[in-house]
């Protein structure tokens, strides 16, 4: 149920996020979700793509440093308390959320949360124990 996410180092300068995205477009690789963490000097572009293996190849060939990480995707109910219900699954655990980001899913009526945990396996177990189902990778790319 773990989903491979790719992270790319980018300087905090105009055009530095666009360039890797263009390389992916040229190679017909679909970006399903994206988030940018930025500081004053640099940014980290995090993406979930249709073909992570090929994306890594083409980005590395272009000179980028690419880091794969496993993340978890959880569908969130679009009503008050939807997010709180998911987060409560971790309340009595030592599992840490490193970061998270959300993106619309389906035809914009649903939302998926991407979680980066320090221990994704333990997190997946905790979510399942709380009756929260994970979204599989292939579901993210179904239109």
């Amino acid at each position, binding site marked *: 149920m773990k989903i491979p996410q790719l992270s790319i*180092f980018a*300087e905090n300068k105009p055009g530095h996020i666009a360039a890797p995205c263009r390389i992916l477009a040229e190679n017909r690789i679909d970006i399903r979700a994206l988030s940018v963490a930025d500081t004053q*000097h*640099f940014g980290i572009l995090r993406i979930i793509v249709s073909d992570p293996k090929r994306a890594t190849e083409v980005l590395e060939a272009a*000179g980028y*440093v690419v*880091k794969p*990480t496993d993340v978890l995707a959880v569908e969130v109910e679009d009503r008050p308390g939807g997010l709180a219900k998911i987060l409560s699954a971790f309340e009595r655990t030592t599992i840490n959320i490193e970061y998270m980001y959300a993106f619309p899913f389906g035809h914009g009526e649903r939302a998926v949360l991407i979680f980066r945990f320090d221990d994704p396996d333990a997190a997946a177990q905790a979510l399942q124990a709380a009756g929260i189902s994970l979204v599989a990778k292939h579901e993210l790319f179904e239109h």
Partner: protein
Amino acid sequence: MTLPSPDRQLTYHPASAPDFVPTPLLRKLQLERVQAIVAHATERVELFRQRMQSRNLAPTDIKSLDDVGRLPFTTKADLRDTYPFGLFATSMRDVVRVHASSGTTGKPIVVAYTKQDVEVWTSVMVRSFAACGLHEGDIVQNAYGYGLFTGGLGAHYGAEGIGAAVIPISGGNTDRQIMVLKDFGATAICCTPTYFLHLIDRAAQLGVDFKALPLRVGVFGAEPWTESMRRHIESATSIQAFDIYGLSEIIGPGVAIECPCHDGLHIFEDHFYPEIIDPDTGAVLPDGQEGELVLTTLSKWAMPMIRYRTRDITALIHGPCTCGRSLRRMRRIGRRSDDMLIIRGVNVYPSQIEAVLLEVEGTLPHYQIILTREHGLDQVEVQVEVTAQVFSDRVGTLEALEEKLADTLERVLGIRIKITLVEPQTIQRSEGKAKRVIDKRGQT
């Protein structure tokens, strides 16, 4: 440190014989040669003659090697001032070759060789390669630049002289270098150490495993490099890395070479007489003390150099080497006296910054030091390329890396330096000497 085994000592190359000449004989030879070359320079070089006269010195005043310390120094400025041929000591009829340095400021400096000088140069390069364990049957990829730079032709003649097959590929065209290394089965390579690091990186990107190649010896020179770079090079490949020292003003590469003990570089003292001086006072320092290396060419006729100030900081090592060579050794050059940066009054050497990067990151990333001046105050920024080893998807990890680098640098240098992580492949790669420092202080 790898000491030569007894077996290896039995396999010394015959070309190395002059490296083992007994010390008293070597000193006698040096004195005879220095007397002859000083007489030649006094007779033929106007600038040198004037300087001897102003000191009331005649060539016959050189009665012992200690008297060398009475002779006037020659500096790089002398070579510039007499550009192009003012220090030639023979007519152009006797000159068979000229080389020139890529002067970073203003005019280059020009050096000349007679046929005999080229033979001497070849002989010291043959002895250098012999000390690195090369012999007939080796395939030497010579990636030093061919042309006015002495590195290319110097290494070429030496490699041919020892009977190796030379691939005169010259510098640059990295992908082709890697293809040729692999396809021609080179067993040795000559280039600058930073260019070899670049070859290692690029080979990894191309999926070429350096450890699987027959390459076993690397002869690296033309710029200062460090022990930590050697460890990095030797762990990423299966080569033994040797430091070679030389400079165009003296002859080119082949002034000094490491032996397999890797404990200092043996100076070919039968052709180059070394002294260590205090760079501020010019006083000669005893063996073991650190100072500026000064060299006198003992057998170079087209352009003798008397007490040439190299600007390289080193020390002569007292005592014999395990390999048995009687030639004195110098510590490898960690820095040049003109490499030193003075930042907010603090002396900083690029090699110190390099050592910290290597210590913190585990491997040496590509980096560049940028100096600017803001409101009259020197500012230093070290740009460091992010490598796969240190990159993380977590902001905190990268910020912690920046901070650790800045903290360690502060501990070593005593000043705070701004660290900026930059994207891979953004710092210009050198195909010759690496340009590590960009000093913009004159412009701001």
